[in-house]
């Protein structure tokens, strides 16, 4: 150990001596850092549990070294212990992510850990959502080769589960061809773009089950098409998986399939988007026994709008990998400035509607499980969302975003519970910003959610007040009030204050108060956050 340091110190002096004469390229190191520390105080009124260690921390740092065509990196993660709401199997510290890669002409090689997505992710998506504790990084080898106008990706690896690896080995390939580059010459004025893609992923997981004879090699394949011309574009992808019995589908030998179709038209001031989705038995993991957000191999994008306002995101939807059918449509329109509805600055309106049902299924044998008719909406409503958003600037100082949503949400299906039924909510949010001058600004959000028949936790109101001093300071106060709870004692205020300091790419935020028990969603994947009372310190930096 001492010898290593000694040698390194010597070589440092050697290099410093020479640095004056010849500025050489030793490459660069950049990275980022984030730590979230939360303290927990038992609070029986909001049902915040007793946390024996009283304070917990999640932290990570990424370091990436680049020199020319060579890149290497490492990530250090630490959970002492993992924050409430994260899977407790994230424990201790370690280096769960490390890689080296280089580019040699048309060939790009990565060894170690990598993230990758095939098409829309229907059969394979390896990605990270640090805010949710979701990380299914691959550990193996990835090769990318550009053949003329086509791109090929081949990979071999195991996926990550906490600080260990999945039992299965994955091998995949993906190819994409830009047909327009082949058909038209480079200076052609034709703006037709056609791209065709195909992918396949096969996993090998040994069969250790004493009862069933399980298929050890499970393959899934997908094909996709994207066409765009002028203001119009169309995209579709279809994926199929052979029999893949697992604890998620209760060990049935049925095949799985999924189809995504979408089209959009847009021009200046107007855009329209429509999409439909069909999913049948497409839960795909690198561990037959896994559940929750662990060891996922694919990503089936939810076909509903992603909400971020506190009460709009109260009942968020997540794709039911086992089976669902849905559609979404939206229109964006801008009333130009000077017109009657546009006013002085223009007014934007966005209308969105989405609906998701279960499949129309018929139970068959214990081996197959069930049969579903493709393209047919089942009777059970999983989720429905109609929302309108109006963005309007009234003056140089004052602008607003007003949103209304009517959400129907099947709690049992989406949250995996029993006996909770469905809720029908009306949510209204007014997001108003008043810029006092170039430096000081005041923003407020006033929100209300009315839950019909006062089901579940009943109705809520929320208010947020944020004062910002550009570019460094943010002061905010948030209150959520459960005024409609059927249990009068639970009609409580969740009050929280936060101070944030940002300088360039360093951010420090300190908040104190009550956190409501609920669902936190980032990127279409959600995790449960339990009720908590205490302070949270968050430090984040990029360098």
């Amino acid at each position, binding site marked *: 150990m001492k010898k*290593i340091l000694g040698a*390194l*110190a010597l070589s440092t002096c050697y290099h410093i001596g020479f640095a004056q004469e010849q*500025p*050489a*390229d030793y*490459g*660069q190191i*950049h990275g*980022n850092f*984030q730590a979230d520390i939360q303290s927990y105080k038992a609070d029986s009124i909001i049902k915040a549990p007793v946390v024996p260690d009283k304070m917990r921390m999640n932290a990570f740092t*990424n*370091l*990436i*070294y*680049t020199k020319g065509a060579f*890149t290497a990196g490492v990530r250090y993660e630490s959970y002492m212990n993992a924050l409430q709401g994260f899977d407790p199997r994230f424990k201790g510290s370690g*280096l769960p992510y490390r890689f080296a890669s280089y580019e040699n002409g048309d060939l790009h090689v990565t060894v170690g850990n990598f*993230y*990758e*997505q095939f098409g*829309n992710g229907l059969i394979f*998506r390896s*990605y990270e959502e640090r805010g949710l504790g979701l990380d299914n990084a691959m550990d193996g080898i990835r090769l990318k080769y550009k053949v003329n106008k086509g*791109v090929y990706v081949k990979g071999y690896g195991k996926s990550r589960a906490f600080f260990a690896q999945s039992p299965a080995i994955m091998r995949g390939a993906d190819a994409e061809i*830009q047909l327009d580059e082949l058909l038209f010459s480079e200076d052609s004025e034709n703006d037709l*773009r056609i*791209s065709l893609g195909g992918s396949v992923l096969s996993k090998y997981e040994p069969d250790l089950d004493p009862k069933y004879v399980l298929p050890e090699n499970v393959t899934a394949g997908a094909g996709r098409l*994207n066409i765009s011309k002028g203001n119009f574009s169309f995209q579709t992808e279809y994926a199929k998986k052979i029999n893949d019995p697992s604890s998620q589908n209760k060990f049935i030998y049925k095949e799985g399939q999924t189809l995504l179709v*979408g089209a*959009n038209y*847009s021009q*200046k*001031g*107007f*855009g*329209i*988007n429509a999409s439909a989705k069909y999913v049948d038995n497409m839960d795909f993991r690198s561990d037959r026994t896994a559940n929750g957000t662990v060891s996922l191999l694919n*990503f089936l*994008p939810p076909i509903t709008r*992603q909400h*971020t306002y506190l009460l709009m995101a109260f009942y968020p939807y997540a794709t039911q990998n086992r089976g669902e059918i849905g559609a979404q449509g*939206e229109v964006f*329109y*801008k009333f130009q400035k000077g017109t009657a509805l546009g006013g002085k600055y223009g007014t*934007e309106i966005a209308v969105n509607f989405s609906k998701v049902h279960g499949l129309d299924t018929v139970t068959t044998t214990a081996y197959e499980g069930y049969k579903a008719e493709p393209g047919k909406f089942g009777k059970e409503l999983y989720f429905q969302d109609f929302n309108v958003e109006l963005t309007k600037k009234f003056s140089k100082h004052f602008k607003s*975003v007003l949103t209304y949503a009517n959400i129907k949400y099947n709690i049992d299906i989406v949250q995996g519970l029993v006996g909770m039924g469905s809720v029908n909510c009306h949510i209204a949010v007014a997001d108003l910003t008043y*810029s006092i001058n170039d430096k000081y*600004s005041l*923003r407020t959000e006033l929100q209300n959610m009315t839950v019909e028949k006062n089901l579940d936790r009943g109705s809520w109101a929320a208010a947020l007040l944020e004062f910002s001093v*550009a*570019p460094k300071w943010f002061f905010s106060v948030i209150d959520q009030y459960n005024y409609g709870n059927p249990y009068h004692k639970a009609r409580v205020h969740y009050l929280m204050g936060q101070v944030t300091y*940002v300088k*360039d*790419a*360093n951010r420090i935020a300190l908040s104190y108060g009550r956190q409501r028990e609920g669902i936190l969603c980032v*990127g*279409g994947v959600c995790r449960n956050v339990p009720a908590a009372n205490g302070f949270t310190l968050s430090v*984040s930096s*990029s360098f």
Partner: protein
Amino acid sequence: MIKRFFSALFALVLIISVQAQENTKRKIPAAKVKNLKGTEISTEQLSNDGKPIVISFWATWCKPCISELSAIAENYEDWQAETGFKLVAVSIDDSRNVAKVLPLVNAKGWEYDVLTDQNGDFKRALNVNTVPHTFLVDGNGDIVWQHNAYAPGDEKALYEKIKKLSKGESIKE
């Protein structure tokens, strides 16, 4: 074993940072993203004829990002005429929301170069944690400044920096 690895790593970082004193300029790292037509773009080739570039990471669900890009859009034509800078808006929307990017950008009338980074490769290469995250690249292709979060008024401070860069001045305080 871990301790030794770490000591070696930190020693290595020390050496490299010492050498890097000569080489603190950072270029745009290499990653593959797509433009709104679906064509693959190599990020290390982003350029603007020797004039400044602003790279802004955003998402359709990120309200402060949309505020920032809308605020800059109001002045984009004038600011471009004065400095020649261009803004590249990189959306980190995944396959759930990526189809919304084009209709939203068109409806709002944004004139930016919009790229999509669906699986976060460019975001990771630039070590972005959360959005909005904005980078300022000078005429030589070096990243000279970056900022996380948005407060109304930040765009004016950003423009002061862009003006300095376009005149060839340094923005170090």
